[in-house]
């Protein structure tokens, strides 16, 4: 199952959610941010090479990290040489091997956001409680709807202790999972490990377990 983690606005925590969700699901996370990759990379061919026809997507899979990852290159030249249209085939290929393919989508509303949504079975929209983030997330929700990627959950990230989820759920028309502001999560992400490894009993970990369970439910519908 291909799951697009998307959100519209930059800096709302899409990569963190994608990475930790893939960890909970024991799936593969694909760094779909072709121009500004931010998942841990390492050595070997990456998604730019795959999209430029220099490597197969399986060659770009890094199975040895804490989470199986398909990293993306970090150069503008690499991003320019890549054909974004090849992304749909690459994701479909991974989908035949892995039970869960989680795509970390970039910010914005261009084709690199739309392409994963065309092949995705479901979308998880990430937003913070700020008005600007919610407005962008609603735009992405519309795009996901046009491209037939069902909205599985809205992730309300960096909430306070008692967030008002009801109005958000009403506006998006989907259930909300909240992830509290968490030092444990921020530290884990900075070190390139999922929070389940560094702080398995934290509230943030609990939120990702809840999100993973919700994604399981979406997949069985």
């Amino acid at each position, binding site marked *: 199952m291909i799951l697009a983690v998307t959100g519209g606005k930059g800096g709302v925590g899409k990569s963190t959610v994608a990475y930790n969700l893939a960890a909970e699901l024991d799936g593969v996370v694909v760094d779909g941010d*072709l*121009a*500004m990759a*931010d998942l841990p*990379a*390492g*050595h070997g*061919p*990456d998604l730019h*090479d795959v999209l*430029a026809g*220099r490597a197969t997507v399986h060659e770009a899979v890094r199975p040895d990290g804490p989470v199986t990852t398909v990293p993306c*290159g*970090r*150069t*503008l*030249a*690499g*991003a*320019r*040489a*890549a054909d*974004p*249209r*090849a*992304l*749909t*085939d690459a994701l479909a290929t991974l989908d035949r091997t892995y039970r869960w393919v989680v795509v970390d989508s*970039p910010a*914005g*509303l*261009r*084709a*690199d*956001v*739309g*392409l994963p949504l*065309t092949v995705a079975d479901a979308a998880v929209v990430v937003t913070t409680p700020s008005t600007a983030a919610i407005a962008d997330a609603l735009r992405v929700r519309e*795009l996901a709807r046009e*491209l037939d990627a069902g909205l599985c959950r809205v992730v309300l990230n960096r909430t306070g202790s008692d967030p008002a989820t009801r109005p958000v759920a009403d506006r998006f028309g989907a259930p909300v999972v909240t992830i509290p502001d968490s030092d444990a999560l921020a530290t884990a992400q900075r070190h390139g490990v999922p929070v389940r490894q560094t702080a398995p009993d934290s509230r943030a970990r609990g939120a990702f377990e809840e999100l993973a369970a919700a994604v399981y439910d979406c997949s069985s519908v």
Partner: protein
Amino acid sequence: MVTLDCTTSHHDEVTLVTLRLRDLDAPTRVTVRNCLDGPVWPPRREGLPVTGWTEAGFEGVVGPGDHALGYATPASPADPPAVLDDVTPAPDADGTPSESATDVVRDLGDPSPPADAVPAGAATTDAESRDTDADPSESAPATPRSRADGRTPAVVEPWLEAMTARVEVAESLADADTLPAATAAVREAGGLAEVRALAASGAADERRLREVARRAETLANRRAAATVPVETLARIA
């Protein structure tokens, strides 16, 4: 009865062809073929031809009513510029094809960074860009580069060329095993005095070349190991 009206206008060596499909009363698959003696330049969005346009013309399902189509071509105008090749009722098609990857790029825009954003010379660095975070022991000897790929800096090139010339002269002197060949090689080298000087500097040349190679190798390894954390620095800046 479907009719096709064509008009053309010619500006600056380019013919613009305007087509009007009239009186369609149901969804219909139409094939419009260019008759002008030149390639079809179809309308494009985000650099990709609009759905339905091919090298020969337009083929696609259009809904009821009137429709306008248009393309450009470098050919001279003629009459007719295009003809309606085929008209087939397509009652089941709703005229909105499913979204392919190309459609998505066309609709939402190519996300690739613009050419101006890519630093000059970076276009050839597909392999090099990866070397910055690659294993140094792997990147040095395992990837023999052609000269065009890893260009030597302009300041180093003249010295390397001079050294290459001396090595070549020394090689031809060493290879000369007949009297005529030896005579020719000595004349080529600039006389016996030059040959003596060349022989005397052999060890020094070799030492200097090896020293440069060693320093370049060490620097290459250090450069490969030092990944510049642009994202982190940008975040704290």
